[in-house]
């Protein structure tokens, strides 16, 4: 057994330790430590990906007691790829946003912010690597609390109100998820994922116990969907992402919602079994709700008056895309959903990191009427915003187009029927709506301002901002142009996922 096998454990334990360490360090030292540590984590995740690509998935026993008695974590190609992309996005978010953190926060609380960031990293990685339902629940609660902390650290009245709505909905979701875990434990007597699946196969074969199994799965699904923002439960998004400091907004919209969806996919594949899930009516419900989210989220984005709120509604629409992929089902559907997780994470991070710079040259205002011409005042931010907007619309060579193509292919592979028609209609309508509000914004930021808008001095061209954004752009183009590489990675990962 090579030393690489221990790396998932190191990532989790060292992140938890870093959280406690940043609590002790003063503000600037905490920031520098976090940046170096996240770079180190990216290298570790790359190493794990290379190992699992060549040697397949491995299970790591936590302690000396094997599966049903002790705890274990598991790493495969899919988990390693997701971890790598999440770490890169976190690194770029911290690099690009730390200037805004210094402006938005009280400086005595800066080290608390980085401590929460490190704990969130630990929770994200733990939910990616975990092979146990109850560990997933504990780290899900850590993720909820740290994302609340990341939001309230900017002390204006709007964020406190947004935080309370966010927390109330998230706690509903957590309560339902815990109830689902407890029901599964009662039915199966195990808490680790693989032993539960053996029991569930027996339960699904017996028609007396199939209803209970369906209800338990439904409760788990509802809990995680509330937390990630599926259609009827997405109304916390605009307030939350709209007023948070840019690093927090980028991390929460790109990573936190996706971690919950990743846990849901893991539960479907490893705990319940994908063939059993496909037979349940949950699949169609998720498809319909996902499509409703896509369309209604885009319609609400059209009416937004604030650029961050528009981006937040667009996030709600994209979560709808991912659930549509889960609803289509089959390996192709899940491949499309996971590809969209990656594409959207990369694009949304870039979007939320450019809007504050556009606001900075317009008198610190995020309203559309003040942002007119800001792309001309700050050229770098304007270019990056245009790239991310093109990717969200779905213009070829960018990641968004490749993601929508995958959805189309998955729907075709699913077979002819009402699902195919519905998916294609939804893709067409939402792409059109996306184009409407994004192109309108791009035109606005590049048109000459009238006298009423406030002009500001141009910011310095800082390499510290442009280099991470270039990294995100390169990743976006890689996902868009060489999509078959990523699709092959995801496919391989799904084959060894269950």
């Amino acid at each position, binding site marked *: 057994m090579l030393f690489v096998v221990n790396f998932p454990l190191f990532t989790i334990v060292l992140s938890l330790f870093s959280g406690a360490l940043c609590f002790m360090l003063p503000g600037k030292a905490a920031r520098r430590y976090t940046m170096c540590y996240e770079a180190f984590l990216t290298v570790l995740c790359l190493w794990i990906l290379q190992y699992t690509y060549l040697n397949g998935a491995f299970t790591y026993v936590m302690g000396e007691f094997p599966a049903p008695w002790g705890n274990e974590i598991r790493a495969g190609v899919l988990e390693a790829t997701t971890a790598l992309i999440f770490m890169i996005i976190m690194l770029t978010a911290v690099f690009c946003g730390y200037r805004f953190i210094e402006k938005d926060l009280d400086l005595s609380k800066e080290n608390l912010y980085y401590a929460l960031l490190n704990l969130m990293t630990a929770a994200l990685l733990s939910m990616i690597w975990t092979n146990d339902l*109850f560990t997933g629940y*504990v780290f899900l*609660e850590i993720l*909820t*609390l740290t994302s*609340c902390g990341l939001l*309230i650290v900017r002390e*204006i*009245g*709007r964020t*406190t*109100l947004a*935080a*309370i709505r966010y*927390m*109330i909905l998230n*706690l*509903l979701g957590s*309560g339902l998820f*815990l*109830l689902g875990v*407890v029901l599964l*434990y*009662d039915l199966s007597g195990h*808490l680790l994922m693989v032993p539960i699946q053996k029991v569930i196969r027996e339960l699904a074969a017996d028609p007396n116990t199939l209803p209970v199994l369906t209800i338990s799965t439904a409760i788990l699904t509802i809990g995680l969907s509330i937390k990630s923002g599926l259609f009827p439960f997405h109304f916390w998004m605009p307030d939350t992402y709209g007023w948070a400091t840019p690093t927090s907004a980028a991390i929460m919209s790109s990573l936190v919602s996706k971690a919950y969806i990743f846990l849901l996919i893991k539960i479907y594949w490893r705990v319940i079994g994908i063939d059993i899930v496909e037979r349940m009516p949950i699949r169609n419900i998720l498809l319909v709700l996902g499509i409703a989210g896509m369309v209604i989220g885009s319609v609400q984005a059209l009416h937004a008056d604030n650029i961050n709120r528009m981006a937040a509604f667009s996030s709600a629409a994209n979560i709808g895309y991912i659930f549509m992929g889960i609803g289509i089902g089959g390996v192709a559907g899940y491949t499309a959903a996971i590809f969209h997780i990656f594409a959207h994470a990369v694009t949304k991070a870039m979007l939320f990191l450019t809007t504050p710079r556009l606001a900075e040259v317009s008198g*610190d*205002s*995020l*309203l559309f009427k003040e942002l007119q011409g800001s792309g001309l005042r700050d050229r770098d931010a304007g270019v990056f915003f245009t790239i991310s907007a093109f990717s969200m619309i779905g213009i070829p060579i960018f990641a968004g187009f490749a993601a929508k193509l995958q959805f189309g292919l998955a729907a075709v592979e699913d077979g002819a029927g009402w699902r195919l028609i519905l998916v294609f209609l939804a893709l067409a309508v939402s792409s059109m709506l996306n184009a409407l509000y994004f192109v309108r914004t791009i035109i606005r930021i590049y048109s000459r301002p009238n006298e009423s808008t406030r002009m500001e001095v141009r910011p310095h061209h800082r390499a510290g901002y442009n280099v991470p954004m270039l990294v995100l752009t390169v990743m976006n183009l890689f996902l868009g142009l060489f999509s078959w590489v990523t699709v092959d990675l995801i496919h391989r990962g799904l084959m060894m996922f269950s």
Partner: protein
Amino acid sequence: MFENLWINGEEAVAIILFGIGFTMLLFQRNLLKKLIGMNIMDTGVFLFLASMGYIEGRKAPIVTNGVLDTAAYINPVPAGLVLTGIVVSVSVTAVMLSLVIRLYKRYHTLDLDEIYVLSKHQMEDR
């Protein structure tokens, strides 16, 4: 359909508690009552877990007189899960209470609808 409900009576009561807490969390306008609803919801889940582990005629899982037989003790696993759940519930209650304190300091009311209306009308921060 509901034949076993009387036999599983403790678990049914736990589910009713969960439902009451869930409804309070969703529909109450007063913030402190919402928090109490959240606590009732968590308490319902803990009661459900605890009653799931109970086996009649057996003792608590602490080894006494060297008896190492599974037939002498109840199921120890739900007890560990409840411990973790209680700690999580306490932490979340503390954070929510401090959020309520901050909101009250700013808006001088505990009614969530009122706070929402007030925040829409106040434009001092963007």
